[in-house]
């Protein structure tokens, strides 16, 4: 035997074989793009726009579906790879070749699945890190693994398609399969609960096998992904991998295209059977929070309490800051009085799962929230119920505070016509004009405004004076005249006179 001097092999080629290095890099870049862009948008990465309010539960939900673009590219990657390395025209690994079946099919499927899953996992790390930094969230292992399985599944399916067809035309059915599969989840909808009672375990079982499914309810504080659901998805992944590998082996053991029926049946049958079992009998994906003890903090100086789920500290802090600013507009006896106390409940986690309980709280928690019979305002998160439909964001809270602490019933009719008149005629018009601007100005001073202020249609001198006040001046005016505003006793002349006094004073 001739002694042949060998050049040392680059280790990377051996590890990656038969995946082609350059193609893999290109596909990885494409797979990473969609989740990274969504992370930038949803999690404020890169500092674009105002900081989002980050919730651990939102991340858990997002991790389970933001793989959609990655998955579609993963199936194309699998097909591309198989069409090259297992092409019917390539003497290396054509279906008619010999060789160890595990190495011919299982090894590239496994490697590609790991790469696709890992790509999604890495792409979501910035969003995970950002959420952990902003909240007290633990690493979302369950949702993370759950999300990674789908690109792996799609790669394996794509690889099998590539083996069966054996050339790059396989990309066409592969793309069709990708789009159909991605779209299928949108047609499986879970009905939303009609009442104010949410089930403890919810979401569609089909989420275990389909990429995106309407869960019926959105994220809420305290939400958790059922670990058994993650196990179910991992089992489904193994079923897909095994059936695709067997399908390829059946195809390779036959006469190529003539064996497509048996090969396809080997792939489709186990996947459909297991998919149906999971879809009809599997666990539901989401677990709502068990009855909990809320985290409540009273805003200093007023009868205003903010309560949240213990997981929702970031949101709690944000709302507390905002409500502290709002409360500074109402230093009257009403705001201090327990008779007009307000308790704000942040999020759907407070919605009960028991028809016999008003809230999803422990006994002690319920007593704490309802002590003193406050007006209870529950904000909703993502999903609306009858009790929370009117309270979706901070602006709704500012309007609610105005209604409770500065009711001004005398201005009710004037408020209905605030956009109809071009002149402020009396105290009711003045009160209505001021109350229309207050929510936006309150938001602006709390640092949460959008930069504009909704005003009525009046444009006489009194209206102009009120419109041209900055937010601080406006607040001072409201504080100084609160009782009179509440009784519609601030006339347009009073506004003009007040402005003249202020100018003379400065």
């Amino acid at each position: 035997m001739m002694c042949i001097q060998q050049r040392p092999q680059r280790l990377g080629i051996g590890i990656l074989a038969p995946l082609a290095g350059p193609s893999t890099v290109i596909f990885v870049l494409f797979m990473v793009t969609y989740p990274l862009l969504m992370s930038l948008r949803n999690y404020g990465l890169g500092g674009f726009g105002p900081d989002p309010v980050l919730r651990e539960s939102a991340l858990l939900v997002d991790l389970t579906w933001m793989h959609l673009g990655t998955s579609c590219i993963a199936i194309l990657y699998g097909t591309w790879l198989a069409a090259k390395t297992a092409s019917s025209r390539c003497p290396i690994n054509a279906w008619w070749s010999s060789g160890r079946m595990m190495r011919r099919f299982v090894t590239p499927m496994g490697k590609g699945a790991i790469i696709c899953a890992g790509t999604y996992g890495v792409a979501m790390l910035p969003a995970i890190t950002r959420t952990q930094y902003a909240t007290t969230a633990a690493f979302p292992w369950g949702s993370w693994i759950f999300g990674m399985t789908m690109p792996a599944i799609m790669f394996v399916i794509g690889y099998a398609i590539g083996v069966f067809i054996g050339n790059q035309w396989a990309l066409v059915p592969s793309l069709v399969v990708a789009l159909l599969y991605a779209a299928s989840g949108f047609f499986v909808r879970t009905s939303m609960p009609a009442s104010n009672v949410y089930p403890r375990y919810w979401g569609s079982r089909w989420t275990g096998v389909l990429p995106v499914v309407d869960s019926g309810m959105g994220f809420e504080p305290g939400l958790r992904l059922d670990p058994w659901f993650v196990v179910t998805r991992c089992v489904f992944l193994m079923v897909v991998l095994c059936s695709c590998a067997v399908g390829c082996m059946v195809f390779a053991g036959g006469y190529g295209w003539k064996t497509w029926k048996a090969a396809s049946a080997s792939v489709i049958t186990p996947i459909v059977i297991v998919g149906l079992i999971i879809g009809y009998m599997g666990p539901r994906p989401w677990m709502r929070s068990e009855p909990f003890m809320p985290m409540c903090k009273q805003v200093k100086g007023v009868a205003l309490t903010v309560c949240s789920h213990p997981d929702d500290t970031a949101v709690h802090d944000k709302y507390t800051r905002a409500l502290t600013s709002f409360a500074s507009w109402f230093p009257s006896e009403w705001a201090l009085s327990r008779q007009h106390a307000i308790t704000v409940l942040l999020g759907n986690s407070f919605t009960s799962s028991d028809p016999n309980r008003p809230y999803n709280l422990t006994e002690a928690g319920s007593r704490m929230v309802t002590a003193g019979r406050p007006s209870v305002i529950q904000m909703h998160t993502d999903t609306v119920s009858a009790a929370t439909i009117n309270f979706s964001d901070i602006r709704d809270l500012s309007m609610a505070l105005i209604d409770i602490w500065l009711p001004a019933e005398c201005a009710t009719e004037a408020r209905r016509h605030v956009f109809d008149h071009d002149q402020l005629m009396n105290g009711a018009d003045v009160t209505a004009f001021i109350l229309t601007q207050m929510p936006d100005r309150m938001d602006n001073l709390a640092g949460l405004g959008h930069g504009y202020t909704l005003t009525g249609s009046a444009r006489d001198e009194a209206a102009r004076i009120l419109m041209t006040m900055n937010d601080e001046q406006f607040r001072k005016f409201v504080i100084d005249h609160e009782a009179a505003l509440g009784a519609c006793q601030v006339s347009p002349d009073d506004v003009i006179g007040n402005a003249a006094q202020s100018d003379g004073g400065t």
Partner: protein
Amino acid sequence: MEDCVVSGEDMDVKACHITYRYGQKKVLDDVSYTFGGGLYGLLGVNGAGKTTLLKLLATIIQPESGSLSIDGDEALSRQGRKRARTHIGYLPQCFDLLEASTVLHNVQYAAWLHGGSWRDAGRRAYEALELVGLRERAQSLVKGLSGGMRQRLGIACAMVPFPGVLLLDEPSVGLDPLQRIRLREVLHGYARDNTVILSTHLVDDVVAMADHILVLDRGSLIFDGDADDLAAMGENAEEMTTIWESGYRRLLAGRISEDAEDVEMYGDCL
């Protein structure tokens, strides 16, 4: 050149009453033959059935009737195919390679699929490349190779499992005369301990290297013998096509010799 051919098995390939159709057209008609060790050349014009016969022997297509056995085991059932394919290396006439990979990687991957570690596969790949004269181009990318080099690389890929039966469809296509001489040497050496069956329409190649020559005409086996038998058959020229007549004339002129040291070019023939 020192031999480094891994010894294989002397495989019998037995085809009995093989018939095959493409649609209504009968491409192979009751073909029976036993291929023992050595180098077999399949001659025939385009459409004679050479490629079809090779594909049948490679268990790529299934005969309409007849039987096939390799090394005594039938090769048409599922298990039989699986067994048979472990003994077969096949290179089609038109084939693709992993273009973005190196020459070595292509062969190494083919070797790795048949077992052993990646390093062992690399060693076997180098052996195969040495056989076909591409060792110096091991690190070159496939897409930069000439047609002849690609052909040799394809042969290396088919050969690297060192199968007992090597089936090559038009392996000389694209090779220059010197490369064809080398190819003859390689295949001759390989055929000492294995069975090599190649198809071609180039009479020179077959006469120069084949131990046995088979002639197919319109799906039937019309000749089985060696080069001398072929020359003798030339006396009945009307039984052969124009291409055969040309080869026959050169053969008589003595311009073709297996051991020729001086080579003259006549078009793409020697």
